[in-house]
């Protein structure tokens, strides 16, 4: 048969040539430059896998006495106001079980608490703590973190990363779907307002 008489050398060279040709067609052998993380403007909706976040502003405030969210002495509250909309088919928990931030994360900020999860997530409308967001119903919320008073002040620049997860499949051991770990999918840049004692709520 024909293949009995084909020298191995020719075969190897031939295959290598085909592979190199293919990679040339597909862009070459250089490393791919990582896609830069997009910057999201205030008021611009950021559509994640399950949650669309439209952040509006960031502010510092002494506390929310009506809602019972008051920081310890010497601390203040960093608030990021955003409208969130659940775009999946099931209710979505905003406060994650692992205890770390899973929607947005202020960068280079030393939080008073151990974890980076918000101290509270409050609904603007009635000040109640929102743990679950319903599909298709946009809610204006305030993500609240407790920080030391000297950590930030009005007029500071603040970068807030927007986090997202990708869907991996149905979970078999526990109830629900499986998602990847959080990754930074976008970022916002704010100038912090200082609301003092404010009557925001």
């Amino acid at each position: 048969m024909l293949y009995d008489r084909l020298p191995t050398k020719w075969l190897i060279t031939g295959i290598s040539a085909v592979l190199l040709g293919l990679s040339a067609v597909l862009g070459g052998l250089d490393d791919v430059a990582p896609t830069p993380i997009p910057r999201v403007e205030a008021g611009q909706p950021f559509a994640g896998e399950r949650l669309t976040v439209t952040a509006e502003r960031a502010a510092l405030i002494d506390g929310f006495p009506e809602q019972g969210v008051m920081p310890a002495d010497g601390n203040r509250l960093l608030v990021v106001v955003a409208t969130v909309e659940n775009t999946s088919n099931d209710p979505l928990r905003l406060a994650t079980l692992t205890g770390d931030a899973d929607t947005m994360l202020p960068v280079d900020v030393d939080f008073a608490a151990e974890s980076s999860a918000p101290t509270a997530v409050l609904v603007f409308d009635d000040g109640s703590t929102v743990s679950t967001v319903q599909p298709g119903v946009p809610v204006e919320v305030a993500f609240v973190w407790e920080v030391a008073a000297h950590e930030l002040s009005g007029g500071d620049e603040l970068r807030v990363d927007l986090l997202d997860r990708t869907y991996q499949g149905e979970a078999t051991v526990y109830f629900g779907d499986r998602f990847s770990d959080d990754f930074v999918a976008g970022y916002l840049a704010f100038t912090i307002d200082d609301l003092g004692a404010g009557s925001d709520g």
Partner: protein
Amino acid sequence: MTRTTMNWRHVANGAGLVVILVIAGLVAHSTPSIAEKQAPIAVRGELGEPVAGRNILATVDAVRVARSVEASNGWAGGTAGVWVVVDVSVEARVDGLDPTLGYARLRVGETTFSASTRPGDGSIAERGMTVGIAWTGPLMFELPLDVVSSPAAANAELQLALDSDPRVDSLLVIPVDLRALDVDESIETDRPVWGAR
């Protein structure tokens, strides 16, 4: 090579193989998937009548839709959608030791909505139950208006279970026709009551 002779044994072997493959295919196809094996055990009932599962008993009294709700504890919450308020009486049965109403959902087509905890103690969502003693009160769901008036809303279902993971236990399913309900401007809800009615 010699021509192989047609042998009835060979035909029978071939036919036997085909039959086994078909049976294997049928078995593989009808084996329950993980989701089916672990599915909640649905107990269907109607509005207004008691629906009894293994560990939960509930009677849905009324369903209303409104743009704003005022709860008995003074909470008045707004929403970008509408509120679907379900007045229901729920009782835990067999399970003792701190059962809670952990799963209260409204399903419209492919989408599920969970009962809101924003009203606090003005609703019975996630309320701690005592075995044998019912809690009667409202459950409030936030839904987008276009979902409430969509065709699928005519076959909406209210789903109730004790555990927040409803798998492999009773799930009460009560069909509700949301499309047939008028959207009120504002409604008030009753105070949740603990005890027999």
